[in-house]
C-alpha cells in the first residue's frame, strides 16, 4: 500500500512551448487545448479552496433492492455518494461527475470545496458511466443514452433526498451542476425536473458538456488510435512516458505531490508535442471505455467479449478480457453493445435515433427557451467537433460563457472560472479566498 495512486494522475502528463501570458485579460496559462486538459490549473492560480477538518459524510443507497450483489464485485453493493452539509438553512447543489468518474477525483474536489465554502449543502454523485453506478443504479447497465441516464440520476437524487437528506438538511433552494458528460446530464435533469418538479431546480450550470456524446467519444477514440494501433507501439509509448516521468521525478527536490504543479514542471522541461498529449488523453479515455465495455457486456449478458454464463472467480486470470476490451473503442461499445441492447425491446430503433438521444440536440427547444440553464465552455475544448461551440452559443445566447482557452475542464479550478461559476448561482467565496 506504499503505492500512491496519484502516479496514475502523473502518468497523464507531458506537453510544448513555455507558458506565457497571452494577449488577453484572461490569466489562465497560454497552453493549447491538449496541454491544458492534461495539466489543469497550477496551485497558485487557484483560489484558496482549503477546508479545515473533514466536514463530509459518505452515504449509500440501495437503488434496486431486487438486483443481486455480484460476488466478484462485492465492493459495489450500494451506490455511494458524498455530502458536505452546512449547519443551518442553506441552498443545496447536486454535482454530477464526468465520464467514468465516481464521486471523488480532482474536478469533483474543486466543485465540492468551492460550493461548500460559498455556503451550499453539496451532494456529489458518480457518473452513470462509472463502474459503481453501472452496477448499482443504472436501469439499462449500458449507459450513454442521455435521457435514460439522466432519469437514473434523477431517481437517485429523489431517493437520496427522501430517504436520507431531507431528515438532516435544512434546504432553501435546489441547484444542479456537472462537468463534462455530467454537464450534458445537467441540461437533461433541468428539463426532467421542469416536468416532474420534485426539486424545482432554480438553476443549472453545464460545465464543458459534449454537445454530441457520440461525436466526442469518436474524437477521443481517434486521439489514441490515430497514433497507436498495436501493442508494440503502446508499449513503446508507455516506456517513453515512464522514462521521462521517472527522470523528472528523480530530479525533484522535496516532497513531491504528483498533481498539476508537478505536471506543469514536467511540461516546461520536456515540451512534449500535441501528438503525445493526444495519445495520453486517448489512453485515459480508453481505460474508461475498457471498463464500460466489460461491465456492460457482463451485466447485460451480451456475450460480446465475455461468453454468456461465465462465472468469474476472484482468483481467475482475466488477462484476455483485459486485452480485448482495451482494444475495443467506444465506437464499438455503441455499435455492438448499446444499440443491440436497445433493439431488444424496440427492434425498429436505429443507430441515429440513439445518437440523437445521446446529444443536446434532442433538448434544443428546452435549452433555447429556458432561462435557468447556463453553460461554461472553452473555445479549444478537445472533445468538441467543429461547429459545436457555435451551436451552443447560438442556442444559449448570453447564458453561454465561452473562455478563450482551458481545453477540456483544464481551467475549472482557475480563479476566474470558480468566481464565474459561483456568481451564476448568486454566490461567491468568502473574502480573502
Amino acid at each position, binding site marked *: 500500500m506504499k*503505492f500512491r495512486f496519484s502516479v496514475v494522475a502523473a502518468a497523464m502528463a507531458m506537453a510544448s512551448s513555455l507558458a506565457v501570458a497571452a494577449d488577453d485579460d484572461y490569466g489562465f496559462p497560454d497552453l493549447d487545448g491538449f496541454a491544458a486538459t492534461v495539466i489543469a490549473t497550477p496551485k497558485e492560480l487557484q483560489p484558496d479552496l482549503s477546508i479545515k477538518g473533514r466536514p463530509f459524510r459518505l452515504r449509500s443507497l440501495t437503488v434496486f433492492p431486487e438486483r443481486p450483489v455480484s460476488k466478484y*464485485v462485492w*465492493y459495489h453493493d450500494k451506490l455511494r455518494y458524498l455530502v458536505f452539509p452546512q449547519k443551518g438553512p442553506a441552498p443545496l447543489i447536486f454535482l454530477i461527475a464526468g465520464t467514468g468518474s465516481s464521486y471523488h477525483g480532482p474536478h469533483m474536489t474543486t466543485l465540492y470545496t468551492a460550493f461548500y465554502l460559498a455556503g451550499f449543502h453539496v451532494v456529489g454523485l458518480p457518473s452513470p458511466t462509472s463502474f459503481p453506478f453501472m452496477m448499482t443504479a443504472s436501469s439499462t447497465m449500458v449507459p450513454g443514452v442521455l435521457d435514460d441516464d439522466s432519469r437514473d440520476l434523477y431517481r437517485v437524487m429523489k431517493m437520496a433526498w427522501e430517504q436520507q437528506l431531507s431528515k438532516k438538511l435544512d434546504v432553501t433552494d435546489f441547484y444542479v451542476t456537472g462537468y463534462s458528460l455530467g454537464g450534458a446530464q445537467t441540461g437533461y435533469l433541468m428539463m426532467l425536473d421542469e416536468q416532474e418538479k420534485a426539486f424545482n431546480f432554480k438553476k443549472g450550470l453545464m460545465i464543458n458538456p459534449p454537445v454530441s456524446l457520440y461525436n466526442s467519444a469518436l474524437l477521443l477514440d481517434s486521439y489514441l488510435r490515430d497514433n497507436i494501433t498495436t501493442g508494440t507501439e503502446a508499449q513503446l509509448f508507455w516506456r517513453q512516458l515512464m522514462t521521462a516521468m521517472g527522470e523528472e521525478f528523480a530530479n525533484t527536490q*522535496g516532497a513531491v505531490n504528483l498533481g498539476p504543479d508537478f505536471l506543469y514542471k514536467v511540461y516546461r522541461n520536456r515540451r512534449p508535442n500535441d501528438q503525445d498529449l493526444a495519445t495520453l488523453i486517448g489512453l485515459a479515455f480508453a481505460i474508461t471505455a475498457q471498463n464500460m465495455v466489460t461491465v456492460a457486456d457482463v451485466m447485460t449478458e451480451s456475450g460480446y467479449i465475455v461468453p454468456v454464463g461465465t462465472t468469474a472467480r476472484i482468483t481467475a486470470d482475466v488477462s484476455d478480457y483485459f486485452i480485448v476490451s482495451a*482494444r*475495443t473503442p467506444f465506437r464499438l461499445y455503441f455499435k455492438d453493445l448499446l444499440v443491440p441492447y436497445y433493439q431488444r425491446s424496440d427492434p425498429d430503433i436505429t443507430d441515429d435515433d440513439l445518437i440523437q438521444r445521446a446529444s443536446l440536440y434532442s433538448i434544443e427547444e428546452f435549452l433555447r427557451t429556458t432561462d435557468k440553464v447556463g453553460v461554461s465552455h472553452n473555445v479549444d475544448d478537445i472533445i468538441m467537433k467543429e461547429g459545436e461551440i457555435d451551436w451552443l452559443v447560438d442556442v444559449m445566447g448570453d447564458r453561454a460563457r465561452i473562455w478563450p482557452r482551458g481545453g477540456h475542464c483544464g481551467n475549472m479550478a482557475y480563479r476566474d472560472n470558480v468566481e464565474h461559476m459561483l456568481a451564476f448561482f448568486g454566490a461567491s467565496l468568502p473574502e480573502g479566498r
Partner: protein
Amino acid sequence: MKPIALRLILTTLTASLIILSGCAASRPQEGADPARRQIADVMAPEDKSLLTAYDPWEGYNRWMYNFNARFDRYLFAPAAEGYKRFLPQFMRTGVHNFMRNIREVLNVYNALLQARFRTAGRSTGRFAVNSILGLAGLFDPATEMGMYYQREDFGQTLGVWGVGPGPYFVLPLLGPSTVRDATGIGVDYAVWYYVNLFGYREWASDQFLVWPTLLYAIDTRANISFRYYEMGSIYEYLWIRDLYLEFRKFEIKR
C-alpha cells in the same frame, strides 16, 4: 512483532501460496456460445500484449489483494478515517513527524549502501536536527532548513544494484510488492530489530497492545490516499500491479 506471530504469518502465507498459486482462467459454462470478439480479432499473432508484469502467482496474489481490500474497507481505512476526524491536525502532524524521524535510521543505511552519500548526509542531518531541535522528532524544523525527507528501503537498494523485481507478490496487509521488495522489508525489519534505536523498539513491543506499532500503522494509512476498488475499473488488480512496478522504478531512480 512477536516471533510466534511472525511464524504464524509465514506458515499461513506459504500454505496459501501453494494452494492458490495455480491460476485458472475464468471458465465459461459448457455449451455456451463463444464470445463475439476475441483476442484473435484485436491482436496480430506477432504483436505484444499490454500486460508485461511477471506474475506467476496470480491466483494467490488476486486472493490476497481481495483479502487486503476487505481488511482495508472494514477495519484499516475506517480506523484511519476516525483518527483523522478525532485527533487534531497538530497532534497528527506530531505523530507523523515522530514516526518518520525514527524511520530515518533505515533511510540512512540504505542511502549509504546505495552510495548516495548526499542523501545519507541529508537524512543524518535531519535526524540530528529533528531529534534535538524538534523535540525527539515531534516537529520537523529540518524541512524548513531545506533538508527534505526521502524514503529509502532495502528493496530500492537491491534495485539500485541491478536486482530485478522478481515475481509480483501481494503481501498480507501490506499490499502490492515483489519478491525483491518483500525481501527488502524483511532486511529492513531485521536492521530495525537489532539497532533498537534508543531502546525504542524494545519499549514499543512491551506496551499494552503494542500501541506504538498500531499508531505507526494508522499514521501510515492516514497519509495514503489510495482506496481499494475505487479506481473505477473492473481490472483494478491488473492496473495496480503494472503501475506499482512502474512506481518502484521511479523510486529506485531517485
